[in-house]
């Protein structure tokens, strides 16, 4: 179930996991528990992503309609989705943003990401995006600068991020925490989801 607030044609579109469960998966109570349920939900999300094709690089996985998220499902849905789209042989060039309720989902997602060494950008609805999951202090600092700047132009990374800034930016892109444009500049995923098509 795509979120109508993010119509096709923009860079970001949202998959409302709660609506997906109630609708296409016919789960009356939106509790993301047990691994088999998590697998079914992840496969449904992947189906939505495949239908969206390559027109949107940023997908918002919206968990705000989910009441309970256990660790098994956090691993099956969030961690395994990120894992699948991390390597070069990923099924699509898609980046992920997570939208969640911190006190309901934040801990479970953070723990499963830590277990697998993954990180993602998360919107907890408090007006700012956060990096969830393990990252070095340097990576976090570089990501924060990019998040505030929204976009770092080609050749500006060292001046904005300091010595080794370009390598840090590259590392964020490899971890799918930032988007690299063809010309060499980089965008924050949160900004990219709001902007017209990337160039």
């Amino acid at each position, binding site marked *: 179930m795509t979120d109508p607030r993010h119509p096709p044609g923009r860079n970001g579109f949202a998959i409302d996991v709660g609506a997906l469960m109630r609708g296409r998966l016919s789960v009356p109570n939106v509790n993301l528990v047990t*691994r088999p349920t998590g697998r079914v939900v992840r496969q449904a999300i992947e189906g939505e992503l495949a239908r969206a094709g390559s027109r949107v690089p940023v997908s918002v996985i919206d968990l705000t309609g989910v009441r309970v998220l256990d*660790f*098994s499902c956090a691993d099956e849905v969030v961690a395994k989705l990120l894992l699948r789209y991390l390597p070069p042989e990923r099924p699509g060039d898609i980046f992920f943003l997570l939208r969640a309720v911190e006190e309901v989902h934040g801990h*479970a997602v953070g723990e499963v990401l830590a277990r697998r060494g993954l990180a993602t950008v998360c919107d907890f609805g408090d007006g700012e995006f956060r990096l969830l999951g393990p990252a070095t202090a340097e990576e976090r600092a570089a990501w924060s600068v990019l998040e505030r700047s929204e976009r770092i132009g080609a050749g500006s990374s060292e001046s904005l991020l300091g010595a080794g800034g370009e390598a840090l930016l590259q590392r964020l892109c490899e971890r799918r925490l930032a988007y690299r444009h063809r010309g060499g500049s980089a965008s924050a995923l949160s900004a990219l989801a709001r902007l017209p098509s990337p160039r």
Partner: protein
Amino acid sequence: MRVIEVPASLDYRNIDILHARAGAGETDPVLFDARRLRWIDPNGMLALLGAGRVAGRGGARPRISLPTSAKVAGYLDRMGFSRAVAGIFHSAPPRVRRRSVRASDVLLEITPITTNSDVHDVVDTVQSRAGAILSNTLRYPPAAVVQFSVILSEVCQNIVEHADGPGWVAAQSYNWTRRLGRHVAVIAVSDLGRGFRASLADEHSERFGDRWGDATALEAAFLLGLTRFPDIGRGQGIQQIRKQVARWNGLLSIRSGTARIADTPPWSQGPPLQEGLRHFPGAQINIILPENSGD
């Protein structure tokens, strides 16, 4: 007929007595005499069911004499015990006139767990009941109902994913005025599956060599988060339950085979690891969450 006297008080502290008295694989018909039962918690109820199931493996279905105390019999009724014994015991007709079933004061009745759908049902049920108990009685923050549901989900999944056998879950809150001076919530989960040692043996026994046994298997799962699955994402359930129970200053113990392992808070007594106990088929998980004292 062999008569097994059920202790007058049966809870997480003495369920081993029941296992020891019940034995296993004996062919004599067995009667569980619970007439003098005055106090029982969810661990005791599940232990009775488990002991009955094991006693029935000898061939003849065991019998049970229900408590003569109207209060205890009524409580067992409300906890779904009478329904749960069907298929395990030839139960004696109730000696007391049953009160109408009032599910509202029960946190979670005895619920069989065999499939993932059962786990969903438990989570759905407990959410509608646990909020008031956790907030008003245990004085936990509002979000605790989510964490409580996650604990139940993970412990129940342990049965489905690892036990390879039937299991039950039950939970209730109590006022432990004399014992602790506080309210508590007790969660009991029990299965008669293959136990931790057998579940982990194929994947992990070799690396532990001669040390491999029930206690080592419990340590591997409890302390190291090992499971029979090679996937690094597995094994988080027990680890996360340990963390959450510790945040709430609770007690968590797992009994399997001949051993028991526990995270013991300061208010409780008991060693972190016990070995050489009477063999228990499957696993029994006990969680006690005390009222937030605001310390």
